[in-house]
């Protein structure tokens, strides 16, 4: 495989061994706004559950560069004619992918997703901030321009509308099987010390082919012989979501984070982010933004712990929420019980989002199993190399494993109590559980 770029700077990494960067990429890494990512934890407060989950958005961003490069080269290996097999074109396209991979999380808020709702007014996401930074922070945009690439093109792979020429590149960065997911599954599993996100990375990276669609435009397809690698990736992702981001205790801390951020907003004590949102327009004071990180929020948490703020106490791991209802069912069962307990708490004077918190989520193996376009056609084509990469259907036509999992998504439903509300809720819970037990007995008796 020819080397399109000659990255000369190597960085040690537990997932890939080395991550190689070009001069310009290293200059981007050395900017204050990128270094800020060292101080944004990749998995927020997951470290309160898996103590070694201390890795940052910084190392993940470097990892995505490596994963995107590996997938790009594998696609090229099996589709040597993409981008007209022109070395300069290939080089340019790979560089665009690598810039987008490196910068895809540069707009992340402290504690990742929980803060977006309050700091970005619910109208924007971290991708909007990343896009803004790539286009408007001179220390970033000028370095990209220096390599003969328009920052808008890099930004459009993260958010917005890429031109046709670059649309295929978006699949490497923000598609269903992108390098972002490829890296975070391996990296988060490694740092959590769990095996749930592991899959056959090398085989997976080489699973894709480029085929013409109905308009003869190039699109991604899965080669039939690699279906097991793709299935393993999807199942790894499913188990990872259930065991890491949706872990019962971790989700409790996420709920408190959100509650605490809202509390700060109500008190007018939100830390200064440097981001201003006015009439749907973003403006960022980069001198401030470069210091807006997990530490900024923790400084405020410490102040509030001293003042006895109950949410701050939990975020300092001095207290916690207590799950009192926790089901994970592969059907709609227990939905009535979930609402019944909430009503009982409310009738007993307990307040939602103050004394008790609710969480419900339908978790599918993967959304691609559900998705179809306007004509009801499923996504992700499968091709057969034995028939010269002829289109032979979609992933759902060829994976009996995924079809069976599609029928039974998991429904997570949880109710948590604060420590101070436990005593008041005691009688309600005793009665609720008595009723459940009586119902179970009746069911068994009926059999």
């Amino acid at each position, binding site marked *: 495989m020819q080397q399109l770029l000659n990255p000369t700077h190597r960085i040690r990494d537990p997932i890939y061994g080395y991550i190689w960067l070009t001069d310009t990429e290293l200059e981007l890494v050395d900017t204050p706004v990128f270094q800020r990512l060292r101080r944004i934890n990749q998995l927020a407060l997951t470290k309160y559950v898996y103590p070694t989950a201390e890795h940052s958005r910084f190392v993940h961003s470097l990892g995505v560069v490596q994963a995107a490069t590996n997938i790009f080269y594998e696609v090229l290996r099996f589709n040597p004619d993409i981008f007209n097999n022109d070395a300069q074109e290939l080089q340019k396209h790979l560089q665009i992918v690598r810039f987008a991979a490196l910068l895809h999380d540069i707009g992340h808020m402290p504690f990742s997703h929980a803060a977006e709702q309050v700091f970005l007014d*619910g*109208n924007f996401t971290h991708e909007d901030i990343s896009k803004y930074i790539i286009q408007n922070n001179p220390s970033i945009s000028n370095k990209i321009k220096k390599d003969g690439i*328009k920052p*808008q*093109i890099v930004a*459009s792979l993260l*958010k*917005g*509308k*890429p*031109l*046709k*020429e670059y*649309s295929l590149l*978006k699949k490497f960065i923000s598609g269903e099987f992108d390098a972002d997911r490829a890296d975070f599954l391996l990296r988060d599993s490694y740092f959590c010390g769990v095996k749930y996100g592991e899959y056959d990375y090398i085989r997976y990276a080489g699973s894709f082919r480029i085929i013409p*669609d*109905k*308009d*003869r*435009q190039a699109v991604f397809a899965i080669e039939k012989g690699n279906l097991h690698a793709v299935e393993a990736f999807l199942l790894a992702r499913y188990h990872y979501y259930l065991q890491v981001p949706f872990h019962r205790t971790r989700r409790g801390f996420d709920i408190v984070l959100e509650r605490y951020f809202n509390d700060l907003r109500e008190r007018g004590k939100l830390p200064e982010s440097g981001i201003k949102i006015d009439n*749907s327009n973003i403006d960022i004071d980069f001198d401030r933004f470069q210091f807006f990180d997990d530490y900024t929020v923790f400084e405020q948490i410490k102040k509030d712990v001293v003042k006895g703020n109950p949410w701050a106490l939990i975020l300092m791991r001095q207290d916690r929420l207590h799950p009192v209802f926790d089901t994970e069912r592969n059907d709609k069962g227990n939905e009535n019980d979930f609402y019944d307990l909430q009503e009982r708490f409310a009738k007993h004077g307990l307040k939602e989002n103050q004394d008790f918190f609710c969480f419900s989520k339908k978790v599918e193996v993967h*959304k691609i199993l*559900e*998705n*179809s*376009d*306007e*004509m*009801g*056609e499923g996504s992700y084509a499968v091709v057969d190399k034995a028939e010269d990469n002829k289109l032979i259907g979609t992933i759902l036509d060829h994976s009996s494993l995924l079809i069976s999992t599609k029928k039974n998504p998991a429904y997570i439903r949880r109710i948590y109590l604060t420590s101070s509300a436990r005593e008041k809720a005691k009688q309600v819970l005793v009665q609720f559980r008595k009723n459940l037990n009586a119902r179970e007995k009746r069911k068994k008796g009926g059999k």
Partner: protein
Amino acid sequence: MSVEKSNQIFKHVLAWMRDKNIETSKIAIQKTLFFLKECGIPMRFEFDAYTYGPFSKQIMDAAKELEYAGEITVSHSDYKLTSSFSDTLPEKKKTNLDKKLNKFFSLINGDFSFDNMELFGTVLYCIRALQENGMEPDSNDVIQEFQAWKGTRYSDKNIENAYEKLYPVFSEV
């Protein structure tokens, strides 16, 4: 913009179409919501270029939620409103949204057919993509970009006609 508020906009578009006797096809919903988003109506739906032009997977998810709640049924290529369906968008917002919806109706001459939706949706996508890349696209730029996506399935004249209708509305990024 919360998911709930975005879903309210989706439901209002369904209600508006029902009231105008427009078939609530998936493609008409997708392209109408794309038009509204590009008009600056805040919503959580993100659109990518897809098989038939700009397409949001989140709209399909929102439809599934409505189906789960019993408000619509989802078939191969369209949605049907059930008797439980209710348009929950606040009246004030309805007025503003209806102005934009009526504008869209007049731009496309009330033609919500599959091909016209694909044509207008893709032309609008191309105008916006070129603008985001720093251009002030003329009809030739848009025809060229359109054909890069769709080949020659639509004539230059049809693309130009859609461009001339849409560009005055979206001449600024």
